[in-house]
């Protein structure tokens, strides 16, 4: 998409690009609560939505915002909320609800430093494990990452597409740098953008089962008000959507919630590789840090060091195969990230001890400077 210069070129902040991407994806409902550094997403949509009949609402708190987007999604609206660390923590119970009831929605989390109120205006990537395991219980989840304004735009569209396709909440993680960096976004022709809408029930209301067992493990929820009367609950439920205590049905349900994502992992996972083919040192980086890593790779190549970069665009499900493939080729892996090794641990697991994995963590609110990565690579070599 970024090479398509026939599209319109605009300068946008990452946060604004998310809002623009949501509009193109067909999102027409936003509920949120102000929090730095994500607030521009809400502000932008508060201007845009009323003009096109979309619905914006500022709720009384983060929990309410998450509840409202689930409610709106059940009426058939593509729904979005945006938040940051503390707000993301507050939303977790209802994110679990969306997983359990299989209600599509998108949550953008512009990460700042923590724990607690932490660093409201400074970047971090400390929520990557919270995005995976923040809500209680076993469940599958899709988490995307963006490293530029262009990607913020594209990944927001993809987040909606995946949410609608797999009937699940999708989390898009930005960090403060990406959210607040203004740069070029090339807006492609709308006819060239793939938009996925949720499927509609094929059967008549009397034969309808919202959570019918299917081969692809994806349920079909009819929008409220279209003649299909059914029940939605966060309790373990059967195919009709009613609560059950039947252990067999419960076991099947939880297995399916996990399997739904795992079995489609190849369709969901996306990575970007830079100079990885002949690399001796592999870097695994995401979000704004992947930009530092790309600079570092180029610098290393100038110095004759064969470095390469693996950038996951989807953090969860974790790209195990791609990491293992890299681990089998390189002599060492470096994982720079704005936390103390949250994804480095996953890289270690996925690489099955094939090579040493070196952590480069920063938690002081400063970005990772490409020179730091170069220095570490030099040390490893």
């Amino acid at each position, binding site marked *: 998409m970024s090479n398509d210069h026939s599209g319109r*070129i*605009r*300068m946008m902040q990452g946060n604004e690009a998310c809002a623009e991407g949501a509009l193109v994806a067909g999102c027409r409902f936003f509920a949120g609560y102000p929090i*730095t550094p994500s607030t521009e997403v809400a502000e932008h949509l508060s201007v845009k939505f009323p003009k096109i009949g979309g619905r914006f609402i500022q709720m009384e708190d983060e929990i309410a915002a998450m509840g409202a987007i689930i409610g709106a999604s059940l009426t058939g609206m593509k729904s979005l909320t945006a938040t940051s660390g503390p707000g993301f923590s507050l939303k977790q119970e209802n994110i679990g609800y969306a997983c359990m009831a299989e209600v599509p929605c998108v949550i953008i989390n512009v990460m700042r430093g923590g724990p607690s109120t932490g660093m*409201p*205006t400074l970047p971090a990537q400390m929520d990557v494990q919270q995005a995976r395991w923040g809500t209680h219980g076993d469940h599958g989840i899709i988490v995307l990452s963006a490293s530029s304004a262009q990607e913020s735009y594209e990944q927001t569209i993809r987040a909606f597409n995946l949410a609608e396709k797999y009937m699940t909440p999708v989390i898009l993680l930005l960090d403060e*740098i990406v959210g*607040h*960096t*203004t*740069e*070029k976004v090339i807006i492609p022709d709308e006819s060239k953008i793939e938009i996925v809408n949720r499927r509609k029930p094929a059967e008549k209301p009397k034969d309808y089962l919202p959570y019918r067992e299917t081969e692809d493990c994806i349920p079909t929820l009819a929008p409220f008000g279209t003649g299909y009367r059914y029940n939605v609950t966060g309790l373990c439920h059967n195919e009709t959507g009613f609560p059950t205590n039947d252990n067999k049905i419960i076991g099947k349900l939880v297995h399916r919630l996990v399997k739904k994502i795992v079995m489609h992992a190849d369709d969901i996972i996306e990575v970007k590789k830079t100079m990885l083919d002949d690399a001796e040192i592999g870097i695994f980086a995401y979000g*704004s840090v992947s*930009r*530092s890593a*790309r*600079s570092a790779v*180029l610098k290393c190549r100038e110095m004759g060091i064969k470095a390469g970069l693996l950038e996951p665009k989807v953090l969860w499900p974790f790209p195990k195969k791609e990491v293992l493939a890299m681990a089998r080729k390189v002599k060492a892996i470096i994982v720079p990230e704005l936390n103390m090794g949250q994804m480095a641990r996953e890289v270690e697991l996925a690489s099955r001890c094939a090579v040493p994995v070196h952590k480069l963590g920063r938690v002081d609110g400063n*970005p990772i*400077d*490409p*020179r730091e990565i170069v220095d570490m690579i030099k040390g490893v070599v």
Partner: protein
Amino acid sequence: MMERYEIRLSGSGGQGLILAGKILAEAAAIYEGRNAVQTQSYGPEARGGASKAEVVISDGEIDYPKALELDLLLSLTQESCRKYSGDLKKGGILIIDSGLVKDLPKGEFKVYSLPITEIATEKVGKAVVTNIVALGILTRIAGVISEESVKKAILARVPKGTEELNMKAFDEGFRAGNELLS
């Protein structure tokens, strides 16, 4: 081909430096077809305190979006000058408000000292356009983006009805920069 030109605009929150940064980035990216990235760093307060906006301009791809070795630093306050001048590279440019920055940092760079705030208040008549006056000065002294592109970017960004005022501010700054160079 220009590899990477790094500009940092620093001052106190509320001086409109983030807007000035966006204008510079848009001038380079939209009106000159180059790549430009603007980032910001700020404290929790909307007014006061040291704040900065950075612009990286390049004819190639810009990976790391923040400044690494500054080509140009603009400082409108003493505090921001002290706090943000460490990354200024050898032979770089430091533009300061002569009325507000008294202690200069030590280093091998060229210093351009002008009464930026005073130009805005005395010659243009409004302190609110200090950022645009600064843009005029910077455009002339840096010489990396054309006067025309910056003007177009200003007009696209400022509120309707203030175009004339902002153009005057830019011209006064540009002229002051010109005088200093000649």
